[in-house]
């Protein structure tokens, strides 16, 4: 693979990539499409005669495309479907300018052929050799999960970072006048299942970093209160129902505490509380709004939005010393902060001329980059590897939808979850 691809370019606001096997930090962008890896995913040869399997290559292609780091080669004119290196005509693929191809086959195995085995290879066309060759087994009904895992393996091999294609998202849908549901789905919107149904609004869903629970704000008690729900069992506990509003739950990186916002003493203020509801501690008390807490990955600071300077901006507070520092300075106002998994980038909403859009800021250089155009983009959150952002936006019909944008800004892709309006969305962690 080309070493030069991974060298740090001069783009001022981004951090260099290390060539080590450790997680990739931030991808640089230069010259747009020049930095995407061209890959062709060939339909796998299906010895199984189960039609759904034929979609696996599409799932893999869509995953890689969505990340913004790959560009898929159009194979509509290709009739040659190799299944491994021996069948590959390298010069043909080189002519299509495909740097890599993904090929494979699916066989029925096991008792009465009820299971399937996918044998696939990632092949470097320029070097004319197989980079990876893997066999995976599963039920035919699990073809999407298997395809996502294949995409993850390819992603990790070629970028050095974990892929997120086998993760989950959660989102709140308004299904009708008094009908709201919190759904969990595959990250690409497939397999949605409702975990909370309510006649009243639900906002701020937040996954615990250990993946076991989801916190959310519900208006079912005619005021905002915070629940924590166990994802596997569906059982929930009321974390906070103090006098006034209870909202904005944010898990600490070790999943043991949450930062929350209460209005017990008039305006919105930030507190921390143990996950079992004990040990509440106030972090600040000012005349201004203080809300939307978000922990730094090292657990030492909490970023938040506040109007103490007149309009909403983002600040950070040291959890031990309570010292507050302002972080954003551009645009009319800045809200909804969160941090990248490596702690180097701040993700937020920047409002400029009335338009809300998704932006990121390098916390070392303080350079800001707008990732989307607005005008009503909201609810931004990083993928667990920090390479994509999930957010909500309004389309021309004014219905809210969800989509992802790659942090190199090259690729914005909607996520199809149906036509009802989305209130808020969030991304779940990597599974271990």
């Amino acid at each position, binding site marked *: 693979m080309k070493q030069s691809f991974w060298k740090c370019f001069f783009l001022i606001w981004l951090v260099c990539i290390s060539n080590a096997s450790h997680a990739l930090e931030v991808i640089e962008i230069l010259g747009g499409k020049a930095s995407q890896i061209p890959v062709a995913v060939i339909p796998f040869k299906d010895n199984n005669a189960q039609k759904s399997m034929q979609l696996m290559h599409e799932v893999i292609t869509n995953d890689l495309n969505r990340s913004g780091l790959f560009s898929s080669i159009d194979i509509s004119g290709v009739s040659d479907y190799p299944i491994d290196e021996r069948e590959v005509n390298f010069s043909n693929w080189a002519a299509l300018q495909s740097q890599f191809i993904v090929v494979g086959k699916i066989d029925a195995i096991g008792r009465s052929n009820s299971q399937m085995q996918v044998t696939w290879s990632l092949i470097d066309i320029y070097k004319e050799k197989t980079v990876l060759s893997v066999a995976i087994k599963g039920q035919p009904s699990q073809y999407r999960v298997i395809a996502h895992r294949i995409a993850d393996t390819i992603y990790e091999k070629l970028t050095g970072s974990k892929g997120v294609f086998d993760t989950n998202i959660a989102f709140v849908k308004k299904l009708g006048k008094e009908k709201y549901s919190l759904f969990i789905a595959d990250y690409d919107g497939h397999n949605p299942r409702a975990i909370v149904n309510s006649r009243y609004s639900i906002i701020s869903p937040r996954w615990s970093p250990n993946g076991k629970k989801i916190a959310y704000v519900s208006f079912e008690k005619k005021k905002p209160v915070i629940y924590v729900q166990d994802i596997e069992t569906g059982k929930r506990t009321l974390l906070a129902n103090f*006098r006034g509003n209870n909202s904005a739950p944010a898990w600490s990186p070790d999943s043991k505490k949450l930062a929350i916002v209460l209005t017990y003493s008039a305006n919105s203020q930030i507190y921390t509380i143990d996950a079992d509801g004990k040990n509440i501690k106030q972090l600040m008390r000012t005349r201004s709004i203080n*809300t939307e807490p978000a922990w730094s990955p090292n657990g030492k600071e909490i970023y938040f939005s506040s109007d103490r300077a007149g309009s909403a901006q983002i600040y950070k507070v040291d959890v031990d010393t309570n010292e507050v520092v302002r972080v954003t300075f551009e645009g009319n106002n800045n809200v909804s902060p969160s941090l990248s998994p490596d702690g180097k980038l701040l993700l937020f909403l920047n409002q400029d001329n009335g338009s809300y859009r998704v932006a990121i800021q390098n916390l070392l250089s303080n350079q800001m980059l707008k990732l989307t155009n607005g005008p009503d983009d909201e609810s931004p959150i990083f993928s667990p590897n920090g390479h994509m952002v999930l957010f909500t936006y309004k389309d021309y019909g004014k219905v809210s939808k969800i989509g992802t944008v790659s942090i190199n800004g090259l690729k914005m892709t909607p996520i199809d979850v149906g036509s009802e309006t989305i*209130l808020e969305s969030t991304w779940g962690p990597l599974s271990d």
Partner: protein
Amino acid sequence: MKNSLLLASLLAVLAAGCSTTDINDPMGLNAPFPELESRTGDGSEVDLIGSSQGKELNQSALDELAAAAELADRSVYFDYDSFAIKSDFEGVISNHATFINKHDAAVVVYGNADYRGSHEYNLALGQKRAVAVKQALEALGVNGSAIETISFGEEHANQTCTGSTCGQDRRADIGYVGE
């Protein structure tokens, strides 16, 4: 302007001679941190709305409320991104303050915001509007402990409003326990 209202409120509190707030610290920033009633469990808790001091309206008070033309208007409207109470609404506040004091009523002020911006920030902005109305009522002698503030943020807002139609959503509503 908010400043003149704040000044008026300080003077009114002094003049009224009854105060549950320290005039040097109207927001209670320096008060000892109160014991918070933590409610964990699975939905069996009593709803804390309206559990303040102040009385639930009885039937005759409810009848009076329904009949009084000057009490029909419950809403104070705000400018974009603002929580300042405009002079247009001093009458609404004053009429309700009179009624509240007469019946020692328990009150809930509900704050709202238009849909633009994040849900959580709008929840906080709605809250600030509710608090502004509460403080304006307190300035007219209403006991602060009888007034609860709740925000719905943008959750009741028209998500497709444009321009001036969004003004409807930027409001605080005065509600009575018992109605």
